[in-house]
């Protein structure tokens, strides 16, 4: 004989209640799978970032020019610390698509020699390299508008709509997926670009250096060299590490928190299940102790059951987590266009999941087992077949005399705290579930609110960038001549560096009308005031700067101090930025060494703000500027909002997945409680049925008990859920993007509905079981 009777009993306790076993194991699987997937993805993506950074040659210095002779590459190569030079053309345009609003902003990169791309190379995944009249499109562009190799696409050039034949698909490491960025990318030969757009010379120089610490100095040397030979330098910057996992790390933190929540709830589920298990087997515990079992022997039997739950759940959870983690890694890698390289599973990932998956069930089970097996034989055997704990006969029950309430409802309500310890545990689990749901609801509401307010300071209908700065009067009059254009203001922003991180340095008019100033402290800049900024609240929070302090910002080739004169409300920014610094447009031009009578960016206000009218205006502006030989970017305000919303979808998916998991665990906990309640109240059920109660009336007793528990949980969750939601939103603000806390009272209503749905789902099976008990069988032992 291999298995002892106690071992067999432990195993049959598992197989005897298959549904409960399945649900408990599922709870453990979910927690362990989440932890495994997150850790696996974290390791894999970190490795992928490193692998891709090694694979893809990135630049350390970017210099933007009006145009430059390709032969300048040889001269730049001779500059000390320069390792690799790549000269290219970049053309911004619009791709005409069939889906609203009818176009997609697009960037075309062209090379003199497509066979010899030294920096930011692309991989040709399908087709061939393009000739004249042809283009290679980034594969992810198909997410914006489906197409295949051989199809024609149309882009806006100065000749109007220019058709190009798609001859290949590309994959560019480090580029955000088009569906994520809402921005398409394509590659052409320099000759092809010249024929299509008239741009015959490169306008961008990318440089990789030997010693990255000397990159700023190298950038200044190269810019000086270019200016010396008469080239018009429009700007430069230090791109930084394109494969910086920093922003993605924020997502990991959030996912780690969600995984911990799932594991804690799984632990509660174990406590609840073991308590139920012990409660169901009080008589067996008494019998075993009567025939010689010590407390330890009884506990060992139950721990064996828990061990099976833990081992099966952990093994399955690790398996699911590895698969899920791999899929999530692929998803993220496609989103950011990374090469995963040889996929490996770090043993520490599996080890951690195994330890956590085994420890939590055991740890959670010990307390209820210790408490439950303390019962004496006499207590255990005298509780057999008797419903509930001793009734306090010396005081009136709650609601006594309220005869207008159905007695079956009182049976349900007064049953809630029959077993106080178990009721408290169930309430705790339900409260956590409801609070987690409230946190998810509030977080999505806060994010939506943030996105809605993101551009609230920006009252324009359109944003226009001309690429290169153009004579101001000329561009302004061109824009104002477009039908439906009412107001045109200068506006540009560009990322700069500071010792705290990246800042969006923004230039606006001295007295803007489209930009809505919301000054919280200090003042606006005065006419002609030089080198002053207002910073937004987020930047002030992150830096601790006060009015009057100086803030140093820098690009690749220049550093400058600005004095803080005010703090304003402005939510602009984004992943990877720490805030906004706003200055006059003249100061902005001066900082980037651009002529004062030029401008490259504008906010445009329309007469008719209807979306269709704005979309038409955007197309007209694009046509007008392209006709002047420019390569503009024209974006509507709605496109900006949509792009931001799409980028948050991944967060919504994660949050609602968590909501589903916590709902499941809440249901499981309540299900266990109600199941035990049915078992303990068999005599009551038998008496009710003998008095004429239908199955439905019997079922309603337990449904009322479930609703009462859920209502209590709702009250408790309302108290702790709001601070919890605040904490979670603050976490997202700290690690991902600066979302402000916004709370809608309707979230409480949604949470109430959530708890009632849980109550109803959890009570279905126990209530049906109660309704189907046969009277004769119940009352026979009495």
């Amino acid at each position, binding site marked *: *004989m291999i298995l*002892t*009777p*106690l071992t*067999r*009993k432990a195993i*049959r*306790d598992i197989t*005897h209640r298959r549904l409960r076993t399945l649900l408990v194991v599922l709870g453990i699987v979910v927690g362990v799978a989440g932890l495994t997937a997150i850790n696996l993805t974290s390791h894999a993506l970190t490795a992928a970032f490193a692998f891709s950074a090694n694979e893809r040659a990135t630049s350390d210095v970017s210099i933007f020019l009006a145009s430059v002779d390709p032969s300048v590459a040889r001269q730049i190569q001779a500059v000390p610390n320069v390792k690799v030079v790549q000269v290219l053309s970049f053309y911004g345009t619009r791709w005409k698509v069939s889906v609203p609003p009818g176009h997609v902003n697009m960037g075309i990169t062209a090379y003199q020699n497509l066979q010899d791309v030294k920096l930011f190379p692309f991989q040709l995944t399908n087709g061939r390299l393009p000739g004249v009249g042809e283009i290679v499109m980034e594969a992810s562009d198909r997410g914006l508008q489906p197409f295949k190799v051989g199809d024609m696409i149309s882009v806006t050039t100065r000749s109007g709509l220019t058709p190009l034949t798609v001859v290949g698909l590309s994959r560019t490491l480090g580029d955000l997926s088009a569906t994520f960025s809402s921005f398409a990318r394509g590659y052409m030969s320099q000759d092809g670009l010249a024929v299509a757009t008239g741009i015959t010379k490169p306008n961008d120089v990318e440089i990789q250096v030997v010693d990255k610490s000397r990159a700023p100095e190298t950038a200044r040397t190269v810019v000086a060299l270019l200016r010396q030979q008469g080239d018009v330098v429009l700007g430069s910057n230090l791109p930084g590490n394109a494969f910086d996992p920093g922003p993605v790390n924020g997502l990991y933190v959030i996912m780690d928190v969600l995984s911990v929540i799932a594991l804690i709830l799984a632990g509660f589920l174990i406590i609840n299940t073991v308590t139920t298990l012990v409660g169901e087997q009080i*008589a*067996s515990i*008494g*019998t*075993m*102790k*009567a*025939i*010689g*079992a*010590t*407390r*330890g*022997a009884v506990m060992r039997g139950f721990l064996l059951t828990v061990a099976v739950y833990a081992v099966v759940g952990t093994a399955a959870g690790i398996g699911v987590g590895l698969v899920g983690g791999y899929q999530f890694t692929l998803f993220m890698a496609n989103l950011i266009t990374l090469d995963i390289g040889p996929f490996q599973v770090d043993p520490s990932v599996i080890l951690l999941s195994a330890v956590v998956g085994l420890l939590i069930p055991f740890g959670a089970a010990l307390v209820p087992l210790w408490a439950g097996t303390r019962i*004496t*034989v*006499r207590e255990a*055997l005298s509780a*057999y*077949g008797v419903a509930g704990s001793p009734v306090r006969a010396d005081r009136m029950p709650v609601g006594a005399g309220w005869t207008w309430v159905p007695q079956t409802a009182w049976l349900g309500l007064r049953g809630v705290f029959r077993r106080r310890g178990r009721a408290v545990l169930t309430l705790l689990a339900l409260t956590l579930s409801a609070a987690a749901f409230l946190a998810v609801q509030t977080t999505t509401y806060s994010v939506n609110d943030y996105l809605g307010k993101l551009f609230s300071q920006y009252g324009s209908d359109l944003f226009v960038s001309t690429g290169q700065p153009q004579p101001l009067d000329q561009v302004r009059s061109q824009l104002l001549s477009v039908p439906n254009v009412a107001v045109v203001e200068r506006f540009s922003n560009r990322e700069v560096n500071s010792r705290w991180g990246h800042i969006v340095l923004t230039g606006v008019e001295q007295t803007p009308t489209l930009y809505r100033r919301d000054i919280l402290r200090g003042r606006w800049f005065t006419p002609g005031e030089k080198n002053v900024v207002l910073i937004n609240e987020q930047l002030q929070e992150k830096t601790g700067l006060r009015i009057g302090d100086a803030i140093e910002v820098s690009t690749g080739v220049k550093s400058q101090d600005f004095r803080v004169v005010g703090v304003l409300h402005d939510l602009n920014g984004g992943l990877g930025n720490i805030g906004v610094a706003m200055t006059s447009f003249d100061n902005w031009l001066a900082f980037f060494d651009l002529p004062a009578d030029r401008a490259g960016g504008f906010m445009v206000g329309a007469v008719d703000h209807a979306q269709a009218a704005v979309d038409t205006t955007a197309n007209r502006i694009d046509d007008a500027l392209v006709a002047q030989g420019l390569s503009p970017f024209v974006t509507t305000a709605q496109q900006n909002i949509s792009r931001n919303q799409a980028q948050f979808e991944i967060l919504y998916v994660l949050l609602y997945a968590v909501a589903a998991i916590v709902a499941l665990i809440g249901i499981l906990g309540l299900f266990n409680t109600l199941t035990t309640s049915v078992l303990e109240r068999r005599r009551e059920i038998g008496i009710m049925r003998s008095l004429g109660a239908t199955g439905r009336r019997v079922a309603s007793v337990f449904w009322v008990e479930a609703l009462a528990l859920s209502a209590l949980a709702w009250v408790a969750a309302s108290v702790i859920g709001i601070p919890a939601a605040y904490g979670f939103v603050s976490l997202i603000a700290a690690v991902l993007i600066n979302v402000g806390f916004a709370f809608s009272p309707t979230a409480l209503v949604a949470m109430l509905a959530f708890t009632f749905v849980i109550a109803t789902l959890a009570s279905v099976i126990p209530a049906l079981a109660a309704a189907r008990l046969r009277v004769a069988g119940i009352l026979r*032992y009495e």
Partner: protein
Amino acid sequence: MAHVRPEPLIEVEHLTRVFGAREQKVAVLSDLSFCVPAGSLFGINGPSGSGKSTLLNLLTGLDRPTSGRVVFGGEELRARTENQLARWRGRHVGIVFQFFQLIPTLTALENVMLALELGGAGRFSRGQWRERGMACLAQVGATDFANRMPAKLSGGQQQRIAIARSLVNDPAVIVADEPTGNLDSRSAHDVFDTLAGLTAQTKTVVFVTHATELASRSTAGIELLDGRIVAQHGGATAIPQSA
């Protein structure tokens, strides 16, 4: 030749058990003193509420007295911890309950072997458990349903399994609390005959009953009323008399 009384296996001295606290104290047993002779079929008789089951629990260490003592085979029970009592019961006492108390997820044979696993099984190695279990089932005529679950057995059959379980560790004493209380008359007679027959194997059988017919079959015993002994017979005196 002088009549030699059987040595007492269990000695009870001034045993009292009070339940409740403060104003709600109830003395279920009051100052009981008696002996259980070895090898006897000892009956504890009395109406419902007389304290029979409470007395049985005290004799087997399932409960602790408020005062007084129980000396079992020369050892006082009171000084032991719960775990010590459990181990002691496993080796020295076989218990048969009114409601059988079989583990519902184990077969009949497994229920019997469970007592071997939990009761120390000092005499039997693990390889002998099955054989020993079947032997005990044979003793009570229950080998035919060794592999059936309790839910598939009648009350009489379940009680036979419970008796087999009580025998498996070869205890000196079998204690049965209303062993026939939940059975039909025919099954009750069969079960009681089985229990009574154990005394022929030098077992001492202590049983509780409110049925006077069964009580009359005892070779020694006491009668309880309201927690006190109102009658006793067959050597159940408090202190053995010297010849």
